[in-house]
Every structure is written in structure tokens, then in C-alpha cells.
């Protein structure tokens, strides 16, 4: 195209070392890899490994949830229900119907993805508070079914689950669990970075920025909303299934409202539309309560205070705020 309206040429911006270090693809992935490799050297005992494993599970779920909430701007207050449903599907199929572990796990993911795909169309038409209400309602219905159908799920008492068996090998050891889940987190992170830095990711962010602009640019809004909803629900179901195997027990609170809120808080606190933030948010909110036990009866008061202070001083979330600060110092 020609035109006489050209301004001074700025040219292609050169990539400098800071861009590489701070990029999610290189710096982020390398840091994550190092932290995952180093962590087992610094922690010991069942208790600390248990926390580390919970962090890994939550982080993977929160990355996928951040694609939905942080990037695409679609709030879900019922996401724990997908996690819980994945867990229960796996538990029921392995203990009551003797399905092999991996098949049960896959069935849980497919079931949840199917529910999410069917519900996506009516639910994701809604915006803002209304969408939050609808996902909340969906989560509550799933929670109610889990607590009421005692014959299948054990009701409020929950149900025990056998160990994960992969090709004849039974996973018991905490360290093996750690490596399995660390690998999954790494893969999830890498795939999420790929999505974010692609035309699909741009379309998702455009849903957040201006749905009207996206639509008029040829983005099939319904398709992309459904895609990211199903994806995030499916990942939650997978991790729910693995959680059930790992803990050997699943209870309705995993599918409950408080857990849903916890997941969204991890997204917001770590940083909306920040993948590294998802991991940091999950780690902070999983580890923090363990250490606040020292405040005994004031535990939740302190917890709430910390959350409030973080949101007041880091409204964009932990990682984006820190990132901005460091980049400003570096110039």
C-alpha cells in the first residue's frame, strides 16, 4: 500500500536480553523448570511433599482457568465443580465399576468437557455478574448432585479411591507423584504459552478487550468462548481425577463453592492474564494457610488481611506488578 501519511519509520524493535529473560516462553519456562527440578532438594517429609503436590495440582488448574478468566475475560465461579466432577467420575468408575485408572481418568475429562460444551452456549451469552451467577448456579447443581446421590458418591462422607495404576505400575510414592504432576504442569504451561502467543490467543484476549471489535474482525465469538470454557473445564477435570488418585479419597468440598472461589482468587492474586502469575498465585494461596496456623484462632483474620493488602497494593496481581516494577528499575 502506498500513502503520503507515513510517519517517521520506527523499524522493527530489536529483541534485547530483557525481553528474552522476561518472556513467558523463555525466561518463564526456564525458571519454572529450574524451580520444579530444585524443589525436591529443599523439601522433605510427607507433609511438605503433600503441600508441593497440592501446589502443582492447583497451579495446573489455575493456568487453564486464567485462560478463561484472565485472558478471555469470562468469569467462572463454578470451576471447582468441574474439578470435583472429574475426581468423582474417576473415583466411581475405578472403585464401583473396576475401570482401569487411565480410562476412568479420560472418561472423567470427556464427561466434564461434554457438560461444559453443552452449557457453554447458553451460559456464555451472559456477561459480567450474570455470567458469574450462571456459573455459580451450574457449580451448585453439580455440588448438590454429588452430595445427594449417596448410593453413587457416598454423599457428604465422600468416598475412597484406589491408587493410580499406569500400565501395571502402581503409583504410591510421593516423589513419583511429584514428578508426574510437575511434568504435567510444565506441559500445561508450555501449551498455554503457545495458545496465548497465537492468533487463537489474540482472539481470546479480544473477547476480554472488546467483544464487538472481535466479532467485527471476524472472530467467531461463540466458538472461541466455548473452546476456552471446555478447555479449562477439561483440565480441571483431569487434575480432579489425579487429585482423587493421589489423596485416595474424595469429598464433596472439592466441588464446592469455597474451592471455586479459591481458584478464582489464585488467578486474580497471581495476576489476570499472567501464566507465571497463575503458578505464583496457586503457590501463595496453597502454602500461606499452612504457615498461618501459628496465629491459631486469628488464622483466617490474618489470611484475609494479607489478601486485602495484596489487592490494595498490587491490584494487577502479584506477578504483573512485580514484573512492571523490575522492568522500570532496569529501564
Amino acid at each position: 500500500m502506498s500513502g503520503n501519511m507515513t510517519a517517521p519509520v520506527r523499524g522493527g524493535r530489536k529483541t534485547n536480553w530483557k525481553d528474552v529473560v522476561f518472556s513467558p516462553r523463555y525466561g518463564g519456562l526456564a525458571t519454572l523448570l529450574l524451580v520444579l527440578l530444585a524443589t525436591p532438594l529443599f523439601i522433605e517429609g510427607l507433609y511438605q511433599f503433600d503441600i508441593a503436590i497440592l501446589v502443582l495440582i492447583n497451579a495446573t488448574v489455575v493456568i487453564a482457568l486464567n485462560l478463561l478468566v484472565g485472558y478471555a475475560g469470562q468469569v467462572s465461579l463454578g470451576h471447582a465443580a468441574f474439578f470435583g466432577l472429574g475426581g468423582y467420575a474417576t473415583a466411581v468408575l475405578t472403585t464401583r465399576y473396576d475401570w482401569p485408572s487411565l480410562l476412568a481418568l479420560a472418561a472423567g475429562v470427556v464427561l466434564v468437557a461434554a457438560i461444559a460444551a453443552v452449557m457453554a452456549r447458553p451460559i456464555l451469552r451472559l456477561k459480567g455478574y450474570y455470567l458469574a451467577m450462571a456459573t455459580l448456579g451450574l457449580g451448585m447443581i453439580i455440588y448438590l448432585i454429588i452430595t445427594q446421590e449417596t448410593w453413587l458418591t457416598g454423599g457428604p462422607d465422600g468416598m475412597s479411591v484406589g491408587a493410580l495404576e499406569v500400565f501395571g505400575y502402581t503409583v504410591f510414592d510421593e516423589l513419583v507423584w511429584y514428578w508426574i504432576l510437575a511434568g504435567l504442569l510444565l506441559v500445561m504451561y508450555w501449551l498455554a504459552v503457545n495458545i496465548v502467543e497465537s492468533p487463537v490467543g489474540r482472539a481470546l484476549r479480544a473477547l476480554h478487550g472488546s467483544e464487538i471489535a472481535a466479532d467485527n474482525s471476524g472472530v467467531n465469538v461463540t466458538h472461541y468462548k466455548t473452546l476456552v470454557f471446555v478447555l479449562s473445564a477439561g483440565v480441571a477435570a483431569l487434575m480432579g481425577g489425579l487429585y482423587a488418585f493421589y489423596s485416595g479419597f474424595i469429598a464433596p468440598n472439592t466441588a464446592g463453592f469455597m474451592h471455586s472461589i479459591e481458584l478464582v482468587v489464585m488467578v486474580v492474586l497471581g495476576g489476570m492474564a499472567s501464566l507465571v502469575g497463575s503458578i505464583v498465585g496457586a503457590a501463595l494461596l496453597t502454602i500461606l494457610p499452612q504457615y498461618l496456623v501459628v496465629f491459631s484462632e486469628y488464622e483466617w483474620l490474618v489470611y484475609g488481611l494479607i489478601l486485602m493488602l495484596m489487592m490494595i497494593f498490587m491490584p494487577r496481581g502479584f506477578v504483573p506488578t512485580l514484573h512492571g516494577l523490575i522492568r522500570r528499575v532496569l529501564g
Partner: protein
Amino acid sequence: MSMLTVESMTKQFGGLRAIDDLSFEVTQGAVHSVIGPNGAGKTTLFNLVTGVYQPTSGRVLLDGQDLSGKAVHQRAAMGMSRTFQNLQLCYNMTARENVMLGAHLGLPQSFFSSLLRLPHMIRADRQCRDRAAALMEYVGLGDYVDHETSAMPYGAQKRLEIARALAADPKLLLLDEPAAGLNANETAGIEELIRGVSEDGVTVVLVEHDMKLVMNISEHIVVLNYGQKLAEGTAQEIRNHPDVIAAYLGAAA
């Protein structure tokens, strides 16, 4: 040859006929304007043409193809782009990314090629990045390529919308008040830009209140009043049309 045909279109909102049995044609490769007093139905017309609203009756054809029942994103795929009176930019993305969004339909959209970063997707996206920068330079935003969208001045944001619309390689470009809120200098710049776009072969339909701009660049003007076509013709004809003068200045009846 007709690029856009509006055929006896009516849009009823409850008791209000926002567009009332409107017909007109837009020929290929020229600047056309739709003018009219506030509330005449200009933006409603744009929303009907782009598919935001479905007409109560009548239809729209783009380059001979009937658009009835087609969704907004489908019409975009058929070669229609627009800008907005109230800016619709994604402030969570950089300026360049906003332009790249406009090129969405020209890029591989398969989820798996994005998920696994297949080579053809990476190549296409890289080309798109470069083209977005070139387009931004074309509309006069060469200094803002990797800027945060929210940090750009208003006039630059208006141009950014035009760059985004052009990124789709449209046959038809609909501009909803591109000069609103701009000073005389900036408006002259926009006029230059629209003229350039038109010379590059894009058919432009303009909704605008700035009469000087409209009269300067339009080959063909449609005047709306209360959703009906009041007059149609060249700038000269419209300027001297008694009904138009009456509608704008109040009839001396």
C-alpha cells in the same frame, strides 16, 4: 457495479421505525457518505449492514451476495470492515496486536496449530506482525507500533481503528464518524487518509457530521431523516437540495 445494496429495509424498535423502507446503492470504488441530523438512523443503518441487528424487513447485499441471516463475523469474512463511533479497541493489547486482530481471518485459526505452534502458523503470524506495523505506518501511526493502546491519544486511537479495519483487506470499509472529537488539523489528516484508502481500491461508506469533510471527499451522499431517505446525489446536488436545507436548518414552512 454495486458493492453494497440496501433493499427496502425497515427496522422497528417497538413503536419506533429507526429505519423506514430505505433503499440505496453504493457503487464500487468510491467514497459514499450517509448524513442526517442526530437520531436519523445512521448508526442503526451501520448496525443493520454489519449484522449487529437483523432488519424487520428488507435485505442487504454485499457484492451481489445476500447477507440475510449472516452473523457479524460471517459478514466480516465476506469482506466488510468497520470502525466505531465509540471506540472499540482492546486496551488489554498493544496497538500492533489490535491491528493484528483485524487480520484474524487471514491467519490459520485451527486450535491445534496454535496449541502445538506448527511452523505455518508461526510464519503467518510473523508476516502478520510486520504487515500490522506497515499498516500502522500507512495510517500515520508509525511511532506507536508497540505502544500500549490505552496510552495513545484519542486521535491516534481513531486511526488505529482504521488500521485494524484495513488489516482485514476489506472490499467495503464502513467508517462511523471518524472525525468526531478531532480538531480541524486532525480532521484534514483523516480526510487525506480516507482518500488514500479509496484510491487503493477500497469502497468507503462514511457516516459523519463534519459537513466540510463529507462535501470534500464524497462522490455520493445519502441523506437520512427519521429513518427515511430524504435525498441522494452528489455533494453539489445535496448542498442545494431544498429538503436537506429544511431538515438541517428547520423548514421555513
